[in-house]
């Protein structure tokens, strides 16, 4: 039996020619999401088993945050053949060298139809930030399998290994030097997946809502005040809220601040306490603030800007 490990994830965009971008991943998976029909008889043992639906999804977590945000955007999108869209997602796995087992070949799992959307962006102090995203896979006609495996495939050779660390966030013109972790949960919700007639695969799914929420874990308890965050919350505008992401160097520290390879996010919404204060035993106290975002005029709740100098 061969053993495998993850290699990379590839985003192919429609173009002349198509644009292929492989990224390094922390984790990737394809849950099958199989539901079965059950024997409804009163007999002690079931004699009937049926497949009711198979709704696989692709899930990926990566540190190549900027390139994924550039390709996918925030409002979700469809895999397919339309121009300016993502054509396919592919997960690549490579065989591991092991003793006593059989040799394996490079494997790919490809999806050509589906709805992709962002999950969450997590940044802990002193660590590289990660971004997760999901693709609900579809069958193009109800019969074609939503995901197909290829064996003996050629692995991508150019792989994006960018990574970023979050600089000091500023929210509602307040700096958060004592924040320990910041998470942007995009809260992407989708419509119910529609199966094809006489099919077990979904053929349609759409984006319902994207409701980004930024959660800040903080060690500074001295914030519940008019000059900080009052109990009645505090408005945060895009011009007052910046999350600067500093690009790291492979085999080094950081890309020079003046080099325009960093990126940032701004956000708009209402900043309030989720937990005002918390401490137990000898551990440090903490609070949790949430920036519930919303559109500011015609501007999306969270906006990303790329290829910037770092000003954190």
């Amino acid at each position: 039996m061969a053993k495998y490990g993850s290699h990379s994830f590839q985003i192919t965009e429609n173009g002349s020619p198509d644009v292929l971008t492989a990224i390094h991943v922390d984790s990737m998976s394809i849950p099958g999401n199989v539901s079965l029909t059950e024997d409804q008889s009163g007999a002690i043992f079931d004699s009937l088993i049926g497949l009711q639906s198979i709704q696989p999804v692709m899930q990926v977590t990566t540190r190549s945050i900027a390139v994924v945000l550039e390709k996918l955007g925030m409002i979700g999108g469809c895999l397919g053949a339309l121009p300016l869209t993502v054509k396919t997602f592919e997960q690549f796995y490579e065989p591991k060298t092991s003793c006593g087992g059989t040799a394996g070949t490079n494997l790919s799992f490809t999806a050509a139809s589906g709805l992709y959307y962002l999950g969450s962006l997590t940044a802990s102090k002193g660590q590289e930030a990660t971004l997760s995203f999901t693709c609900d896979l579809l069958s193009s006609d109800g019969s074609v399998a939503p995901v197909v495996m290829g064996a003996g495939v050629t692995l991508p050779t150019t792989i994006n290994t960018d990574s970023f660390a979050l600089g000091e966030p500023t929210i509602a013109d307040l700096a958060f030097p004592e924040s320990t972790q910041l998470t942007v949960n995009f809260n992407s919700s989708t419509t119910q997946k529609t199966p094809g007639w006489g099919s077990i695969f979904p053929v349609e799914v759409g984006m319902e809502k994207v409701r980004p929420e930024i959660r800040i874990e903080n060690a500074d308890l001295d914030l519940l005040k008019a000059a900080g965050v009052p109990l009645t919350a505090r408005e945060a505008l895009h011009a007052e809220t910046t999350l600067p992401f500093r690009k790291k160097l492979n085999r080094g520290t950081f890309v020079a601040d003046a080099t325009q390879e960093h990126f940032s996010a701004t956000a708009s919404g209402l900043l309030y306490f989720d937990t005002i204060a918390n401490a137990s035993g000898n551990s440090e106290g903490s609070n949790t603030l949430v920036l519930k975002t919303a559109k500011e005029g015609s501007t999306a709740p969270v906006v990303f800007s790329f290829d910037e100098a770092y000003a954190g």
Partner: protein
Amino acid sequence: MSDEIKAAEKAFLKSGRSRAMFQGIVRSGQPADAVERLTDGDVEGVVADYFAEHKATVDEEE
């Protein structure tokens, strides 16, 4: 990247759409005044016109 294109990109990204989509529209030249209109904030109009013009181009080629 020119200042004009940078401004257009900044306006486009405020819609939450991908940078890849913006780059594709600019590269295609459809619509021809995309950069100017995006700088003025007409993101929805430019996206709609891109897809309409692209479809017309494909239909014509077929």
